[in-house]
């Protein structure tokens, strides 16, 4: 986004709500996109400025939610659901397959900055388990055997 347009984009969203503060979540989503997948301190300053809040407040809100990242992340986000329904049908094997394929554990980012692997609470695809969300696009179901192919595809992108 060019300079100032994050500010303008946030203003536009804020206009949809009776109270501007409501726009903080969409604003944080936008800022996260703007800053390459995570929210550095600068992002909080930007959002705070656009919505007349403080950076501390914006960080407080962001840290409450799992989808905002306060640390740099990989280009691709892999979320493996390990809640009950998925776990009952082999989610842990899928996690381990990703670990093997990527060489990092859950919560970590590969050295080349390509992937962040996380286990996640129920993603809402339990009937087609195990569920994996790659950059928030759902793959349902995913078996451990399919993991190398999935990673291979992503490396190309």
């Amino acid at each position, binding site marked *: 986004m060019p300079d100032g347009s994050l500010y303008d984009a946030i203003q536009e969203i804020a206009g949809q709500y009776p109270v501007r503060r409501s726009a903080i979540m969409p604003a944080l989503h936008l800022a996260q996109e703007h800053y390459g997948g995570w929210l550095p*301190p600068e992002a*909080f300053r930007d959002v705070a*400025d656009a919505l007349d*809040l*403080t*950076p*501390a*407040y914006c*960080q*407080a809100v962001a*840290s*409450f*939610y799992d989808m905002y990242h306060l640390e740099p992340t990989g280009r691709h986000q892999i979320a493996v659901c390990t809640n009950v329904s998925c776990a009952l049908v082999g989610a842990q094997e899928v996690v381990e397959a990703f670990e093997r394929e990527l060489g990092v554990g859950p919560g970590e980012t590969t050295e080349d900055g390509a992937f962040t692997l996380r286990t996640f609470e129920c993603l809402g695809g339990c009937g087609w388990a195990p569920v994996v969300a790659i950059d928030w696009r759902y793959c349902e179901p995913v078996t451990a055997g399919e993991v190398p192919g999935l990673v291979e595809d992503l490396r190309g992108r």
Partner: protein
Amino acid sequence: MPDPDLVTVAVDGREIRVPKGTGMIETAAAAGIEIPVFCYEPRLGPPVGACRMCLCEVEGMPKLQAACTLTAQDGMELHTAQTSAKAAEGQRAVLEFILLNHPLDCPDCDKGGECPLQDLTFRWGPANTRMHFPKRTFDKPVPISPVIALDRERCILCYRCTRFSEGVSEDMQLVARNRGAQSIIATFEDEPYRAHFSGNVTELCPVGALLPATYRFRARPWEIDNVPTVCGLCPVGCNVWATTREGSVIRILSRNHPEVDDGWLCDKGRFTFDHLRAGDRIREPLLRVRRRGFDPVTHEAAAEAVARGLRDANGSVIVAFSGGETVEVATALARLVRGGLGSNAAILPDDLDPAVDAFRAPLAAIRDAELCLVLGDEPVVDRAPIVDLWLRTARRAGAEVVTVNPAGTIAVPPGSAPDVCADLLAEPPRDELRALSARLRGAGRVALVWSGDDHDAGRRAVALAASLELGDGSGLYVLPRTPNGRGVAAAWRSVDAGRAEEPSGDEEVGALWISGDEALYDPRVARLAERARFVIATSMFMGEHTLAADVVVPGTSYLERDGTVVNLEGRRQRQRRAVDPPFRDELEFLSLVGGRLALPIAPWPAEAPPAERAPLPERIQVATAPEPAATARRADAGRGLQLVTYRALFSGPGVERVEPLAFQRPLPEVEVSTGDARSLGITNGDPVSLRSNGTSRELRARVHRRLRAGVVRVASEHAVGLAERVEVTKA
């Protein structure tokens, strides 16, 4: 007949009648029953029911209820832990959960002995812990600012502190981060909690998690005394406890006056006490011996010299007041100089027209206003901080708050308050003000606040108040510059006028009495000192101007005085001596001087001090409102940008000597409007230079989205030497 608004509630079988809607904690208290609470604090807004400490059983409700979230309803039967086994079990459960991760370091904790959690544990707590897992550990203590330390292990996550920061002071700097068991209290990126009211969180915290860094390990509760007094640092006059140990002040706490401060203090009031121990404090009288040298002398010798100097002045004497003196000291000086020596001349920092009291109202009335109009360029928070909190309370309750200043909701050029006032009086008002004028006249309860130096003694504000016919529930608040400026001016005028003419123009002045450090800062006083044959200064600290005095007498701090002060409402309050000054105080010295001039002055307050919590005096009646002087409209011309300056709260001789408050001092910044920033190619944080009259200042830019175009704003201490118009360039 029963009062329809009263309801009957039974608490543990004790019937009590209270107004419908009274909070259950208060209802129980009225029945003599204490319900333990942690998160509940009515001054923080509606109850949140977070800590669950107050669980009680209510007849007809299956689950335990958080009593703090209930209000009295007719026929309600509440059982606390004292009569309900279920409630007792609930309370034990909550206490166990609270203590689960709380360290057992009471003996080391500065809260020990004053800690609600410690008391409750003692009364209700489990004898031993059933928790055999590692407790949460954190780095501790974390200095969240130079004046506040946070111990996250002790924190019980009651969210009082963050609710204060978000919902009372609205600085939104102290926040909760993360979620669930990972939650912590934090500031942004570990930057200091830098806000005018931050210290209140140390009093709100019910455990030893947030403590004044300045108090850590200084004392144990049984070694201290708490002296009830009144803060002497601004015209609000917050009621405080000065905690002393072995003759020194080690802490200031609020002593909630619900009409004045509602139990809040600003950080200046809370943390400046250490200036008492400043290294450059003057501890004995000094007499000039050589051109730039002083010799210490006794008070008697100093009094002798002063008496001589005054006699030689032949009535040409000027007193420059600080506005912080007690009424008693000001009266004594008036008796000596005005009554005795016949001089009429004084510099009074706040010589308000008494007619302002025709519209007086307690500060607490601001809370219930429908419309608050704040006129003047000085930020309210810097001039009379607590008034800012009252205005915020009003706005949260639904009031409209209109501010008229260069960065206000109505952004006007600097110095426009008198014009706006005049325009609001005009019929019909100017177009831009028509809507405001109509709302002002339509609103039932109006709070009118004047926040700036008014060279017309508040008469313009009085005229506006009179034309709005501000009645009961409304009020006029003219914010003086100095803490007791009103009391000092009244004291000066209370003594019969003298005979002598005021020295005028650049005539030589016989003697100049500079009373107090604040007066030493006044540029008018500095100019007078150059024209004076003989200069007396009473001051706490050595400074540039003290050096020009012939006699220097050590001055006291408000924490060392006994006497009366008058706050902005016109409320007389008693200042009590928390600690003895290490020398004779001003009144004793004046008595010594008086004795030598055959003007008897009592060395202690002669009249009875004002009663504690005396009601605010009735409004005075004025037949006709004083006629305000015509406003001299400022010509809005010239090159460059208009400069507006303000006196920051964290400035002045006391604050400057308290190292831990250095981070609160105004930053070397210039606020620039969005439009000007764009056209000058300036962004936040850029170094810029301001130039006028051959003076130049390098400051950092801060872009201010509400500041009027064409105006820049700088704290006065960073604008010394600059004129009303400045050239601004990116450095």
